């Protein structure tokens, strides 16, 4: 074997003192000369033309590195081979480079160009590996190159390269922390990535570079929660830990009411510290301020749906095979879940106890902390913590700790019986720990105190000194609780002084006798006599206790002990240890009255023989939970470097709407403009938005203003779009001014509308197309049932105070509109008009309103398409065009934000029309809007970057776009049936913008018409791997056939297939490029249960489509 021979060859060569040698080769004599020679040899091999020689040389070198030998002098010879064709040589050179580049910075630069070339390689894996090595070379000069490479890779179309980019971020950060700001931008961008591959790595980068920037998580929170189960296990751990911290800052304590209850009822323990109670008070105060009269009672706690989402999505991970993942979920539940739900983690943690002893060690530490706060959780698993003689000592001691924490009145007898057997163990350290544990049980549980004490006294006659000593120490503590009853035990222990040698035990006995000398008046002076005799031979702690004993006896029984005391004090005066000399001097002054002695000596008795409180035997794990469980800091009970504190729960929940992912819509423009003027000081991270995918939303500055209604009560978490928000604001403001009861009722009704709007908003965020008008109209009927709670209006009004007011006139108009209670749609349009009136000055931003412009066209088009195709299909004509129309409304995505585009905003939507020049392309309708003061010329696209196979048909150049005008163009993209983004540059006569278009999977197909039989036949051929079935519970509002059809067709460009059963809806389509069939069927059952089946040859498309449709149907 080549590697092993390399080993042997190497062995004789470079050896330094203290270096371990393996299978020493006696033949290797001359050390240094041969060393140099051998390296020459290697150099020669590296310079040769043969790959096999190079490989052999590299293997030897790597073997040297592995053993920690210095091979740095070979650097020039090795670095030359960085461009070697042979993959293994290349890999080994990389290993070498990463190891030594830091030491040989100048030479390392020689290799950089190879990696730069690699970064441009068409193969994603080569790009990734080039970036990986480039970023691992710790050479400061190349920081700018690395930065550039990372930025480029972060927008690479391959998720694997993006993952590598995420890995590179902390490397660059550790090399040059000054790059932090730029790196945060990259992190922000990668956080918006939707692939599971990237999620774990980027969160890891986030944790290392900017864990304090919790605001970056808001927009990605829900996505991370939803992706979590599919992320690789190491990423899961990092994400869960981060989300725990996030949740602590964003949600309310779910146990807040309960802790209050317990306080009121005088419960055994308050689970949360006193500061929590203060929080409650503060909150109450605020409430009072906000609305004095109404709320005398506390408001009931309602969990934020996002909080629930986190708990729900992490729970299955308790079943992971990875102990770290299980632990991460366990700590998340411990820190975040309501008390009633924490129990689920116990079983999983107990399961981990079957694992390797290191895993047990860590898990038991955490269980020990948990048992202090939540004892009930582990009580059913008491027996799982029983100790086996084969356990390592450190595990035994930890199990003992857990058993002790779990002990209560009901199980103490079984636990004590177990302890009884442990005391006979051969492992003496463990026995000592058991005795300590018995002591703690005795102090905690009054009923068994005497039994324990008797048991411990019996141990005093044990043959093992360690056992006896430990018992003495524990008995001492127990006796302190009720000394008068146990003078016989004290006598018994006094006798032990003759035999027992362990200093701590001797000291304990002496202290006991001194403290309770009244109970043993005859024995005490005798003990002192013996001790005085052996004083000089004792350990320091014993000496101190002898002095202590003599002082106490002198005070109570000076007649008998005066001389003895003086003798002891004299001995101590000349002791070697200054502590003892010091103590002797101090005590002599105190107890022996002289002329000079002051007032203190009068109180000597009180000083020495004061009643002392009994010690509390506490678990060493008490209060450890202020560290995040599962962390290194918790394990060590000391803050480790880089530990992020677990924040306390907030007093009041921060605005939950920050997590809403908004998709820009045309209607938003005017109010956005307004808001911008008001809140300029808010940070605005919009630089990267143009390039990023559709999930990213730039409107972070708006969020603070949005309503908090969802957080306080209703089921829906989203907040409305901006126009609605501002509307709400003004309404509630007006309400709070007038403060009339009837108004409130009205407002509630109105509030429902924004909530509804927000629902649609939320679903649209999940990448499905929404027709807002339709939806709200339809929902109107069933959403009346939503209960509005009082605090809703309350928070609403308090919030409105902070909000800038709108003009009175508008408010009145709007009120009028609300009073008449028209259906939502008219209200909306009316509001829009009002806005227009009001914002006449910055009208350029608003005109023209494109949504009415886009929608009718689409409706028309797809309707005609339907009729066209209907003619082709042989099936019955049940298919009414009405069932299909809902799908025709297109959702628009932002391509270029107005700010980034310097006045030019561009949005795109998938119009779902066939793209006439090329049937394999998806038609994308692009809407340009020039809100700048000057005109824009020569709008066209350039520099299209696509993954192989993808094609783009560019839109015709727009010669001129005058200020304030809008224009529409249609382009075609062949996405090759993948959701990879198409990146290109959008050019005007002055500027170029990098933009990308990424299609939702539902847009990658076109509808086809099948008959029921055809459908069944095709479905039969797409079984097994090509079939994905999911069970789901339909959203309450989505249980009729019509809504299902509407939602599915909105999510994906499919057409309905007729079906005999009214319990089943079927859809069919073909992917645009390859024409693979996509079959979807939704079978509804009782109580909203349903089964979704997707059959598609392309598994990836199938799985993605299932996700999208699932979302559409459940949200």
């Amino acid at each position, binding site marked *: 074997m080549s590697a092993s021979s390399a080993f042997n060859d190497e062995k004789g060569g470079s050896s330094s003192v203290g270096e371990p040698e393996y299978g020493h080769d006696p033949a290797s004599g001359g050390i240094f000369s041969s060393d140099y020679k051998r390296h020459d040899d290697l150099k020669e091999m590296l310079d040769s033309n043969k790959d096999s020689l190079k490989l052999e040389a590299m293997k030897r070198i*790597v073997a040297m590195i592995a053993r920690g030998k210095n091979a740095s002098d070979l650097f020039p010879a090795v670095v030359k081979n960085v461009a070697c064709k042979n993959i*293994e040589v290349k*890999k080994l050179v990389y290993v070498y480079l990463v190891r030594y580049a830091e030491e040989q910075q100048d030479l390392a630069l020689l290799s950089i160009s190879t990696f730069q070339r690699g970064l441009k390689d068409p193969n994603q894996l080569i790009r990734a590996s080039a970036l990986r090595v480039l970023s691992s070379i710790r050479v400061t000069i190349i920081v700018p190159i690395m930065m550039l490479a990372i930025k480029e890779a972060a927008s690479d179309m391959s998720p694997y390269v993006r993952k590598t980019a995420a890995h590179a971020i902390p490397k660059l950060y550790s090399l040059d922390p000054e790059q932090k700001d730029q790196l945060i931008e990259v992190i922000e961008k990668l956080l918006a990535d939707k692939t599971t591959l990237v999620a774990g790595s980027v969160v890891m980068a986030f944790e290392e570079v900017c864990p304090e920037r919790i605001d970056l998580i808001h927009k990605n929170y829900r996505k991370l929660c939803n992706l979590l189960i599919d992320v690789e296990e190491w990423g899961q751990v990092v994400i869960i830990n981060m989300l725990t911290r996030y949740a602590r800052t964003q949600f309310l304590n779910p146990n807040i009411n309960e802790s209050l209850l317990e306080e009121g009822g005088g419960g055994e323990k308050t689970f949360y510290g006193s500061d929590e109670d203060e929080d409650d008070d503060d909150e109450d105060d605020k409430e009072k301020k906000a609305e004095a009269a109404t709320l005398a009672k506390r408001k009931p706690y309602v969990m934020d749906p996002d909080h629930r989402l986190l708990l729900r999505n992490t729970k*299955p991970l308790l079943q992971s095979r990875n102990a770290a993942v299980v632990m991460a979920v366990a700590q998340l539940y411990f820190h975040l879940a309501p008390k009633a739900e924490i129990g689920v983690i116990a079983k999983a943690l107990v399961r981990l106890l079957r694992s390797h002893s290191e895993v047990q060690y860590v898990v038991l530490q955490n269980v020990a902390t948990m048992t202090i706060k939540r004892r009930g959780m582990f009580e059913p698993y008491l*027996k*799982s913590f029983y100790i086996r003689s084969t356990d390592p000592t450190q595990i035994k001691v930890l199990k003992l700790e857990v058993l002790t924490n779990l002990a209560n009145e009901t199980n103490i007898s079984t636990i004590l019986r177990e302890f009884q057997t442990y005391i006979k163990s*051969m492992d003496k350290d463990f026995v000592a720990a058991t005795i300590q544990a018995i002591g703690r049980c005795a102090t905690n549980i009054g009923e068994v105190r005497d039994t324990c004490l008797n048991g411990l006294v019996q141990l005093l006659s044990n043959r093992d000194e360690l056992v006896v000593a430990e018992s003495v120490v524990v008995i001492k503590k127990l006796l302190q609780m009720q000394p008068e009853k146990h003078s016989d035990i004290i006598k018994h222990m006094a006798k032990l002084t003759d035999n027992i040698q362990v200093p701590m035990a001797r000291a304990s006995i002496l202290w006991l006798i001194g403290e309770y000398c009244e109970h043993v008046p005859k024995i005490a002076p005798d003990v002192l006599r013996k001790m005085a005799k052996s004083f000089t031979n004792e350990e320091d702690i014993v000496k101190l206790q002898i002095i202590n004993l003599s002082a106490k006896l002198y005070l109570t029984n000076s007649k008998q002990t005066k001389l003895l005391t003086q003798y002891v004090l004299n001995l101590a005066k000349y002791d070697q240890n200054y502590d003892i000399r010091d103590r002797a001097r101090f005590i002599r002054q105190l107890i022996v009255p002289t002329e000079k002695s002051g007032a203190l000596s009068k109180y000597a008795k009180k000083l020495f023989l004061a009643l002392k409180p009994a010690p509390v035997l506490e678990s060493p794990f008490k209060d450890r939970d202020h560290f995040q469980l599962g962390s*290194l800091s918790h394990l060590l009970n000391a803050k480790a470097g880089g530990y992020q504190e677990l924040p306390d729960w907030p007093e009041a929940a921060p605005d939950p709407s920050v997590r809403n992912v908004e998709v820009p819509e045309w209607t938003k423009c005017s109010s956005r403009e307004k808001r911008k003027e008001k809140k300029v000081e808010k940070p605005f991270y919009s630089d990267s938005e143009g390039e990023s995918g559709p999930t990213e939303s730039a409107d972070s500055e708006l969020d603070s203003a949005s309503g908090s209604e969802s957080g306080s009560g209703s089921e829906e978490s989203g907040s409305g779009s901006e126009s609605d928000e501002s509307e709400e604001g003004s309404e509630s403001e007006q309400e709070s001014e007038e403060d009339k009861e009837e108004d409130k009722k009205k407002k509630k009704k109105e509030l429902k509308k924004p909530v509804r709007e927000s629902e649609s908003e939320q679903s649209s965020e999940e990448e499905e197309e929404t027709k807002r008008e339709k939806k709200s109209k339809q929902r109107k009927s069933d959403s009346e049932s939503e209960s509005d709670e009082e605090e809703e209006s309350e928070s609403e009004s308090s919030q409105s105070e902070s909000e800038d007011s709108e003009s009175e006139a508008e408010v009145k108009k709007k009120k009028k509109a609300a009073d008449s209670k028209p259906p939502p749609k008219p209200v909306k349009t009316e509001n829009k008009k009002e806005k227009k009136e009001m914002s006449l000055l910055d009208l350029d931003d608003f005109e023209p309103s494109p949504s009415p412009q886009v929608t009718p066209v689409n409706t028309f088009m797809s309707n005609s398409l339907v009729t066209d195709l209907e003619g082709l299909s042989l099936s019955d004509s049940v298919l009414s065009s009405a069932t299909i129309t809902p799908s025709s409304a297109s959702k628009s995505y932002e391509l270029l934000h107005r700010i980034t585009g310097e006045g030019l905003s561009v949005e795109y939507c998938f119009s779902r029309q066939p793209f006439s020049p090329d049937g394999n392309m998806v038609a994308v309708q692009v809407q340009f809007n020039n809100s700048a003061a000057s005109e824009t010329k020569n709008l066209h696209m350039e520099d299209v970057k696509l993954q192989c196979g993808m094609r783009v048909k560019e839109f015709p150049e727009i010669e001129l776009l005058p200020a304030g005008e809008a224009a529409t163009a249609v382009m075609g993209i062949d996405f090759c049936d993948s959701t990879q983004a198409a990146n290109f540059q959008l050019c005007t006569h002055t500027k170029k913008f990098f933009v990308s278009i990424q299609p939702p999977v539902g847009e990658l197909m076109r509808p086809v018409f099948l008959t029921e039989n055809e459908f069944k036949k095709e479905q039969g051929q797409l079984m097994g791997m090509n079939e994905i079935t999911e069970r789901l519970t339909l959203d309450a509002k989505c249980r009729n056939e019509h809504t299902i059809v509407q939602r599915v067709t909105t999510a994906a460009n499919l057409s309905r297939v007729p079906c005999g059963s009214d319990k089943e809806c079927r859809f069919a389509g073909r992917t645009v490029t390859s024409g693979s069939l996509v079959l979807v069927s939704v079978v509804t059952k009782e109580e909203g249960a349903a089964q979704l089946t997707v059959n598609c040859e392309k598994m990836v498309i199938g799985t993605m489509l299932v996700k999208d449709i699932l979302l559409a149907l459940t949200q």
Partner: protein
Amino acid sequence: MIHSLFLVNASGDIFLEKHWKSVVSRSVCDYFFEAQERATEPENVPPVIPTPHHYLISVLRHRIYFVAVIQSEVPPLFVIEFLHRVVDTFQDYFGVCTEAAIKDNVVVVYELLEEMLDNGFPLATESNILKELIKPPTILRTMVNTITGSTNVGEQLPTGQLSVVPWRRTGVKYTNNEAYFDVVEEIDAIIDKSGSTITAEIQGVIDACVKLTGMPDLTLSFMNPRLLDDVSFHPCVRFKRWEAERILSFIPPDGNFRLLSYHVSSQNLVAIPVYVKHNISFREGSSQGRFDLTLGPKQTMGKAVESVLVSSQLPRGVLNANLNPSQGTYTFDPVTKMLTWDVGKINPQKLPSLKGTMSLQAGASKPDENPTINIQLKIQQMAISGLKVNRLDMYGEKYKPFKGIKYMTKAGKFQVRT
């Protein structure tokens, strides 16, 4: 996260080091050696050791300490779990994970470590992906490589890393398509002096060896899935399907893997397959002790109890043991005081016994601790909990695979206190 890794052998030599960030001097291991000296037993070295600038997290496997150097906060289990995964990978690659095997394959080890961590964060830990990247050394391949100069490093780029099923490689081909499943259950029990059970539970695993062509989609269903109380899955198992239907549905990894491990709910009474009659006593003043042990089958459902091995740590005062086994052989190590008795198969007609005397240190007082007896055993063709696989189906591929299911019961941590 993980800065460096040092491999330390039983005699305290560092025989391999690997750094993922800046080089950490191996002198950091001195703190580890200190802790090692302090610990009486090798397994008592604390897994986490703080040093002034670093933290050392170590695991002990196969008498090798894997010491990872950490610089800042990281969940300790994260590191521990990773280190165990490293060991598992080595075992998978080299058959054994010994110092010699690692040294023989130092280059492969290095390549593996390089792929498994990037900048200290796990990159590829799935053995199927790793095997695509770096082919495991076989004798044949090593020979071919030395002659032709070809490499162990896969020419193909690992597609698994990019796929939706990262645990399975693509393009797997077998002439014989077979899928074997082993249901192995272990009984953990503590039996007290009088023979009554203090605690007993059953833990089980299903290990699979799947060699199937293409992308098969398997489902495995049980006759009595309710028995399974707490389960943990290989990532390939579709969790939702299990939740809803109690059916294991998965696309298997290629080769050997652990499909799931489970715990049998504690409501069910655990059958204890053997009983032990024991009489171990020491008399005060005498330098002799009596040792008398008899084993017998208890609840075995008619199956034979095989491969029985009894071991016991005798008190320190015992100098030697002079025993007489009715079957099998026994050994006593006077240094560790470990008594082992290899019984073999229990014959219900003629119960195996081990009788004799122990000699104690002259003049020493009688030891007051009682040894515990650890028992290992095997029962073939039976899962003690009664778990039964109902059927195994394959979808997605056309061929008919050969399927096999084997049951076995073992003693896990089975202890009898005396």
